[in-house]
Each structure stands twice: as structure tokens, then as C-alpha cells.
């Protein structure tokens, strides 16, 4: 039985936000009397994450994904509810807890800008109480995995974004944390760099059984790394479960494009009871429920003279787009 490493119960977070009316009048009013209101950005959420799981947090901008990660790693204090991460209350930031986690935020760097990354690695190694030989071994291992041997001795300011991100990752993983909080780790990277980073994270998870909580707007990050997703909508959880189940829920039908020999065949298919999406002179696209694909194909191939056919899945980005604006998936 795999144990829960993260346990969140009825968690809420509110921020005090000051607002003012536009224009000079608003500015003067704001100067003398500031209006602040409490904005609840996370509303009473609960979930558990098992050791070794990779969980993707999905949601539109401002939905509350990053706030959840910040509370899980102890960076910000929750307004209500309880969080237990690896048996610790994150916000207490005890050394034992901090040595077990890491937070990586895309585009936010901890490396010292004017020095080569190796200096920051040794600095982090000493902060996490690693001796020099152990630090060397880990740097060698991680730099091999990340393929950044040559970049270790070049000042950070001279590295490309991809090289910098890999170095950030190495700096954040030198203490071999069990729990990784990754907030948009592939932000701004090119396709190859994104793929390499995903491969690395997959390998790291397999080798160390680390738990990974990930937010990303690149759907490939989510689909290739996460079996489970938590969808956040306006600070509440709208779905928590397997990604493929969610995709099935959101796309109950497939589209079949049939290429016919003549317009007559197209008309025959249209009149035989299928739901038609669109048609041209000798092509017709029909919608078929996922559970009746085989029987529908049998009917088509037995009764009509078909030149060619294509089964299309809706693009993943389109489906995830629906997730970002939908409030509930279980109803």
C-alpha cells in the first residue's frame, strides 16, 4: 500500500487586495482612504497525493494553481485548513522538511547571475549540508542526466534559456528532494528543450520515486508526465482523477472522415442515420460515440463503397481548453 505523502484538508487562502477607481479623483480618494478587500483565492479544497505520484494541476491563469503549490512548499501561510507534506506542516519550514522538497518556478532563478552555475551548486550543497565529495558526485550525476557538462563553468548570464533552466533544475535537485513542486518549468523553452526536460523529470521520478506536483500551460508536459490531474477553477477543485478518464468524459465521440467514390455514396451515408459533422462532394465526416466505433465501422464497410477513412481524435489542446473554462466535470 503506497502511503499518502501530501494531505490537504479544507484549505483556503485569502489575500488583501487594495483597489481604486481610475482617474485623478480615484487617485486622490485612494491616497486619503485606501479600500482593501479580502479576496479568497483558494476555497476549501481537499486532496491527497501518494508517494511517487506525478500530479498535474490544470487551470486558467489566476485559477489558484501556483498559490496551492506555494502553500504546499511552505512559502505562503494558509488562511484556513490543514496541510501535511511528508508528515510536516510546511509553513513551519523545519530543516528536515526543507531538505525533502524543492520548488522550481519557470523564469525565476536562484543561480548567481555573474558566476558560473558550478559556484551556485556548491553553495546549495553547503546549505543542504552535503560534503564536497558527495556534492561532486551528485553534480556529475545530474549534469550527465541533464547533459550540461560544458555549461557548468560558463557565467550564468552567458547561458541560453534552456541551459539556464537545466542549471536551475540541477541547483534545485542537488539535495535529492523527495517532493518536487514545479511551477511552469518549461516556460519559454523551445520544443527540444521541453522534451529533454520532460524526459529528465520522468527518469528522476523512476529512479528516485519522487513525488512531483506540476503546473504547466504546455499540455504536452501534462499528458506525457501526469496520469492524474487536479483541475482548479476559481480556487476550487473541479476535477481530481485520472487524466485519460477526464479526456474520455470531455470527448465522448470520435470523428470519422469517409472518402467516397461519388456524391451518391456521400448522400447514402448521410441518409443512413449517422450524425454528420460536415460534407463535401465526395467526403463526409460523421460523429460516432466512443463505445460504438467498431459496430459503426462494420456497418459502413459492409454497406458502402468507401475509398478511404480516417478516425480523428480532437486535438488535446482543444480538450484542455475546455477544462480551463469548465466548472464541474462530475455532473
Amino acid at each position, binding site marked *: 500500500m503506497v502511503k499518502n505523502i501530501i494531505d490537504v484538508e479544507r484549505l483556503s487562502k485569502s489575500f488583501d487586495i487594495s483597489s481604486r477607481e481610475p482617474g485623478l479623483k480615484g487617485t486622490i480618494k485612494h491616497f486619503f482612504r485606501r479600500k482593501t478587500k479580502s479576496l479568497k483565492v483558494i476555497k476549501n479544497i481537499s486532496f491527497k497525493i501518494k508517494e511517487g505520484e506525478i500530479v498535474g494541476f490544470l487551470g486558467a491563469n489566476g485559477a489558484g494553481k501556483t498559490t496551492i503549490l506555494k502553500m504546499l512548499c511552505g*512559502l505562503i501561510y494558509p488562511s484556513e485548513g490543514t496541510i501535511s507534506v511528508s508528515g510536516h506542516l510546511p509553513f513551519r519550514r523545519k530543516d528536515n522538511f*526543507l*531538505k525533502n522538497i524543492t*520548488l522550481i518556478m519557470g523564469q525565476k532563478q*536562484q543561480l548567481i547571475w555573474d558566476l558560473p552555475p558550478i*559556484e551556485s551548486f556548491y*553553495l546549495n550543497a553547503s*546549505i543542504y549540508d552535503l560534503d564536497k565529495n558527495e556534492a561532486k558526485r551528485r553534480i556529475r550525476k545530474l549534469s550527465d542526466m541533464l547533459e550540461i557538462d560544458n555549461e557548468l563553468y560558463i557565467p550564468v548570464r552567458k547561458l541560453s534559456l534552456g541551459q539556464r533552466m537545466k542549471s536551475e533544475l540541477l541547483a534545485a535537485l542537488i539535495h535529492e528532494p523527495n517532493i518536487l513542486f514545479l511551477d511552469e518549468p518549461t516556460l519559454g523553452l523551445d520544443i527540444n528543450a521541453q522534451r529533454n526536460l520532460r524526459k529528465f523529470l520522468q527518469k528522476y521520478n523512476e529512479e528516485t520515486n519522487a513525488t512531483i506536483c506540476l503546473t504547466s500551460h504546455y499540455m504536452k508536459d501534462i499528458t506525457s508526465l501526469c496520469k492524474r490531474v487536479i483541475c482548479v477553477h476559481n480556487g476550487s477543485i473541479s476535477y481530481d482523477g485520472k487524466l485519460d478518464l477526464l479526456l474520455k468524459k470531455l470527448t465522448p465521440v470520435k470523428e470519422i472522415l469517409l472518402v467516397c467514390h461519388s456524391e451518391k455514396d456521400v448522400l447514402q451515408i448521410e441518409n443512413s442515420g449517422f450524425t454528420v459533422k460536415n460534407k463535401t462532394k465526395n467526403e463526409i465526416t460523421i460523429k460516432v460515440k466512443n463505445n460504438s466505433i467498431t459496430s459503426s465501422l462494420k456497418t459502413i464497410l459492409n454497406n458502402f463503397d468507401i475509398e478511404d477513412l480516417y478516425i480523428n481524435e480532437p486535438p488535446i489542446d482543444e480538450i484542455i481548453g475546455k477544462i480551463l473554462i469548465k466548472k464541474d466535470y462530475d455532473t
Partner: protein
Amino acid sequence: MIPNLIKRKIFTLLKVQYSNMLEYRVEIALWAISGIIPFFMLNIWTNNDLNASINMSDIMLSRYFLCAFFVRQFSVVWVVFSFEEDSLMGKVSPYLIQPLNPFFRYFAQHLAEQITRFPFALIIACFFFIFNPESIWIPNLSILFLSIISTFLSFLIQFLIQSIVACICFWTEKASSIERLLFIPTLFLSGLLAPVVSFPEYVKSWIYLTPFPYLIDFPANLLSGNATNISGGFSMQILWILLLFPAFKKIWSKGTKKYTAMGS
């Protein structure tokens, strides 16, 4: 625990920050030059014969201002500005989830900067002696040692005051404006513009209750060989550190609960 912390963390921090500071050596040289206010003040004092009123000879006064320059060079603190910028830009977030208080980084940054600054300050002192050869003196070793300690304590007091002000960032986001307010008494009451002995007697008795005269006036008087209450000066420096340190810990603990991780 403490030796381990000093050996592994502070030493590496210091080493890395020193390498970083060496990248900015020209900037640091300019900063060292920009700290020559005491020499201007010396000029104003001697040209107007003001030192006669406080029974201090020209030579002792020039030594005092040279020492004030040195003490200032090794006790200047800017942590409030660094922390404010890092806090507003979200750079402080990764440091907060490391098992080391971020202020140790700033502390090491300041120490590294002082080490880098040292040769430039020596060159400036050489120029000072070329123009004021009569002021040349060699302090005895024990006085030199005590002066180094009192300068370090002065640095600690300033670092703690600014760290407390920096923590106000958690509430106001613009803590540096409060630091600017503090700069006024620091400038006038610390002995940077005039030895504290030159103030009227009833004002002096109040000034000596504040931390300001122990920032420059006390270490500078000690190093230059002027009459000063050594044990009283050290006691006040240590007392202020003992008062400021728990205050810093309290405000830090309360402030981090308010942290919203802006910019990240």
C-alpha cells in the same frame, strides 16, 4: 551546530559572494570613493577653526575623520534595498524554502563586499597621508584589535536595524522609505559629520542612549586614539545587539506569515 553552520554554510557563502563581488570591482572602487564625506567635513572643520571649541587639535581631528572614513567603509549596510528588490521581484522565494535564513546571504554579501573594498580604502588612506603627512600614526596592536571588533559590532548593529526595517517589506512593500528616515539621525548623530563630543551637553546625554554614536563615533575615537570610554562603548554596542536581535527574529517570524510571494 554553530561551528558546523559557520564552517559549511557561512564560509562557502562568503567565498561565493567574494567571487561575485570581484566581478564588480570597479563599482566597489567607486563606492569606496563615494564614502569620502568625512574628508569634506574635516576641511570644513579645520578651515573654520571649529575644533578649538571642542579642545581637539588639527592632527587629532584629521585622524578622527580618517578613522570615521574607515569605520564607515566597513560598516556600511544596504540590506534593506537588496531585500526590498528581491522581495518585490520574487527572488526571495527560492531562498525562503532553503534551510538557511536568507539574511545570512545578505550578511555574507556585505562581508565579501568589505573584503573587496579594503584595498581601495587603503589606497584612499595613502592619498590622505600624502596630503596630511603630519597625521600619520600607527595605532598600537591592542587598540587596533579593539577597533576592528567595535567596527564589526557597529556593522552588526546597522545590519540588524536595516534587517528589521527590511522585514517591514512584508507589510508595506516600500520599506526603503523608512530607512531613508533613519538615515537622517544616522548621518547627524553617528559622528560622520561631526564628533559627538561637539554637541551640547544636554543633547549628548540623549544621543548616547541611542545606537547612533556607537556606529562611527565610538570606533573612530577608539582607533584614532582620542579619549573615549572603551568599556562603556562596548557595553552599549553589545546591549543594542542584544536588543535588536530578538526584535529582528520576532518581526521576521511575523513577517514571513504575511509573505505573499509576489512576482513569482
